[in-house]
């Protein structure tokens, strides 16, 4: 058997594990930190892989595949699982014809997420086995362990992988692909139709499979027990926390369950007899700690470690020091360097820029949503005022509009939503808009159709075919909305700044439902290659209208022989979108091509 070693990210290692274990179908919806996972799966031609339109659909695609007996995997970021909860909670009652794995990318410390939910709780709630890798090698090994176990125990599996493990590289031993032929689908109501009273029997079956898996966990190869002779303290840690703990090289025994649910009660009750103290070290919720406590095992945990954020080696050391297990701290105290922040910003030539510059100047109330345009909540724009979850803006706008009108508040409401978010879950909000319309309603929706899922790195979406002929989805948002019965829908080019502004102002003044689809594609994915613009400092009056559009190349600077600060454009960064020249009140910003001519 050929074995090679490679350096892989956690995401790539999961893909590799799925390939080696004979996986046949993988689906996903892009979201940090698991975006690259499906992209890595796509490298294996033996596997059908797709980014689905949202997480719920992605899960359903994987359910269908599993029902046929194929080993199936669906991946998403932690909050994506919320979108998929409805099918998940019922599907997980079924007995798994083909091995099923849900990969959830958790984000302790919220490097790139809107909340910090610990999806181990969802895994338990949904009656799934939960694996928790801490390195690329573990990620691959756990995927290979989980799918056969899923079939053997009739148990849906979760791989809960944190952002650092997804995006970190490590050496991985590769193996060959095992062939796993699907058994096919044979109709059987007791397995695939979750209706009462079938579901009554399934409750017992779920309890039994969980107990059987917990028994298997006693000496399962992925649950490590490292005994230090004579030690009276046992530390329990898993995932990256376990790797961080190893850095301290402590004289205590360690139990590292690769599968954090179900834990082996037999093993833990045995360990209790051997140790004076058991300390659980885990990020976010006290999940394993609570599992131990349910077994009646006295242990410590969150009293020494933070309930939020990551637990680095120095945090573990600090906690164990407070717990009296260390007499001194070896890692030096460190004061973080305090310097000016660098928030992310819209790219040079980003089509969102003129839209939010206009909205900011209009001083209207704007319901935001999730995508690159979420950055409009930050300075320099501060032009959208709510942000909750994918597609939420449409319903939120309707609800606020209704009570505003009831209260006699006639101010207009604007809502922004990207095209990816529109297809993900915005459409249902639009379908709900015409129900109980009132003549006083005044809602203006801006659909930012940039042809891609930009925030996660440019994956395709329902309207990508407009710009990319190779893409098979080319849905026309105007036609969709017209078909729903929303008549006032128009496409407007936002790089014609004045046209877009005047159109928006006119629509905001009108009552009823207006939709403007902003047509420019993502500047990162579909590059603009126009001559760069430059500032004529002799004309510039230093008003900063251009600076306030917050484009990376634009800043104020001193010119020799000219008094006061004047605007400037770094030609190496400018792509020539022309928006700054359109907001300049004195015509000081010009395209370089004309200059040369």
């Amino acid at each position: 058997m050929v074995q090679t070693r490679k350096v892989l990210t956690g995401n790539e290692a999961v893909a590799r594990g799925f390939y080696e274990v004979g996986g046949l179908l993988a689906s996903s919806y892009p979201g940090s930190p698991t975006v690259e996972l499906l992209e890595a799966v796509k490298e294996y031609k033996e596997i059908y892989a797709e980014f689905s339109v949202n997480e719920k659909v992605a899960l359903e695609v994987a359910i269908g595949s599993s029902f046929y007996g194929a080993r199936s995997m669906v991946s998403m970021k932690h909050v994506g699982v919320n979108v998929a909860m409805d099918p998940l909670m019922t599907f997980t009652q079924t007995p798994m014809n083909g091995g099923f794995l849900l990969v959830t990318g958790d984000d302790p410390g919220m490097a790139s997420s809107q909340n910090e939910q610990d999806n181990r709780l969802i895994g338990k709630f949904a009656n799934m086995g939960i694996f928790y890798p801490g390195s690329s090698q573990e990620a691959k090994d756990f995927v290979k362990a989980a799918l056969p176990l899923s079939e053997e125990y009739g148990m849906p599996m979760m791989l809960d992988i944190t952002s650092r493990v997804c995006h970190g590289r490590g050496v991985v031993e590769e193996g060959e692909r095992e062939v796993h032929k699907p058994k096919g689908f044979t109709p059987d109501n007791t397995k695939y139709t979750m209706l009462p009273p079938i579901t009554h029997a399934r409750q017992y079956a779920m309890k039994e499979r969980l107990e059987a898996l917990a028994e298997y966990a006693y000496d399962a190869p992925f649950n490590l027990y490292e005994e230090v002779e004579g030690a009276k303290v046992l530390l329990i840690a898993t995932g990256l926390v376990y790797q961080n703990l190893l850095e301290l090289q402590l004289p205590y025994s360690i139990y590292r369950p690769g599968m954090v649910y179900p834990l082996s009660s037999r093993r833990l009750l045995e360990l209790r007899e051997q140790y004076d103290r058991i300390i659980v070290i885990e990020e976010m919720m006290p999940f394993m700690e609570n599992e131990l406590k349910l077994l009646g095992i006295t242990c410590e945990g969150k009293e020494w470690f933070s309930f939020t954020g990551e637990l680095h080696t120095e945090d573990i050391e600090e906690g164990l020091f407070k717990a009296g297990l260390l007499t001194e701290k070896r890692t030096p105290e460190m004061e973080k360097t305090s310097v000016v922040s660098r928030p992310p910003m819209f790219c040079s030539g980003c089509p969102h820029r003129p839209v939010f510059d206009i909205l900011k100047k209009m001083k209207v109330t704007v319901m935001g949503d999730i995508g690159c345009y979420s950055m409009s909540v930050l300075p320099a724009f501060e032009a959208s005022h709510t942000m909750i979850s994918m597609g939420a803006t449409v319903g939120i706008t309707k609800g606020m509009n209704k009570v505003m009108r009831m209260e006699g508040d006639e101010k207009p409401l604007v809502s922004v939503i990207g095209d990816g978010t529109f297809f993900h879950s915005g459409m249902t909000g639009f379908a709900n808009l015409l129900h109980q319309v009132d003549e006083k309603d005044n809602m203006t929706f801006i659909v930012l159709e940039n042809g891609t899922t930009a925030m996660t790195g440019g994956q395709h979406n329902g309207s990508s075919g407009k710009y990319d002929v190779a893409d098979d989805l080319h849905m026309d948002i105007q036609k969709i909305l017209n078909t729903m019965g929303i008549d006032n829908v128009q496409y407007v080019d936002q790089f014609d700044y004045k046209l877009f502004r005047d159109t928006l102002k006119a629509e905001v003044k009108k009552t009823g439902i207006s939709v403007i689809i902003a047509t420019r594609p993502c500047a990162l994915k579909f590059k603009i290659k126009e001559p760069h613009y430059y500032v004529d400092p002799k004309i510039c009056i230093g008003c900063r209208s251009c600076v306030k559009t917050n484009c990376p190349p634009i800043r104020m600077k001193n010119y020799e022989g000219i008094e006061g600060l004047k605007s400037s454009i770094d030609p190496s960064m400018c792509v020539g979108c022309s928006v700054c020249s359109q907001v300049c009140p004195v015509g000081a910003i010009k395209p370089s091509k004309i200059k040369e001519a």
Partner: protein
Amino acid sequence: MENKNIIIAGVGGQGLVLATRIISEAAFAQGLDVKTNDVVGLSQRGGTVWGSIKMGEKVHSPNILPKGADIILGMEPLEALRWSHGLKDGGLIILNTNRVYPTPVLLEKDTYPEEAIEKLKETYEVIEIDAQEEAKASGNIKAANTILLGLVSKYLDIEESVWHDVLKRFVPKKAVEENLVAFKRGKDYERK
């Protein structure tokens, strides 16, 4: 052998992921164990991003302890400054002098910390290099990160032929020669 720890700091869109990958692949090809944090930060452009690479006989966590880094590869001066607390006293900073101004500076709400960046030289060994200019001079403006890799390679126990093999595998095929030239230029760079 002690592990060698590198912090890589820059701005979203500067190519940190590929640079991290190339260094880790080179370490691995040299026969070392290696772990990385490819990138921490929002996946959108223009924001603070940073990562780490640890190489040695055996690496457990990819995270670097406070004051535990041997080298900061600063793709942008302010970002090198931001993570300087992670560096050992007397540690090495490779400082790409090409400045990228953050939003608070562009909006004149804050100033770019020129003095604090200059003061790094008091505590650390700082090698300043304008990687973009060097890349242009070497014949390919896009090879700025390869210039930096060439420079950092002087401080790592990885053979030159290993770097060449890895570069050949990971840079675009048509740009291999240009990147090898850029790598050599970075390696031969003499402090000004």
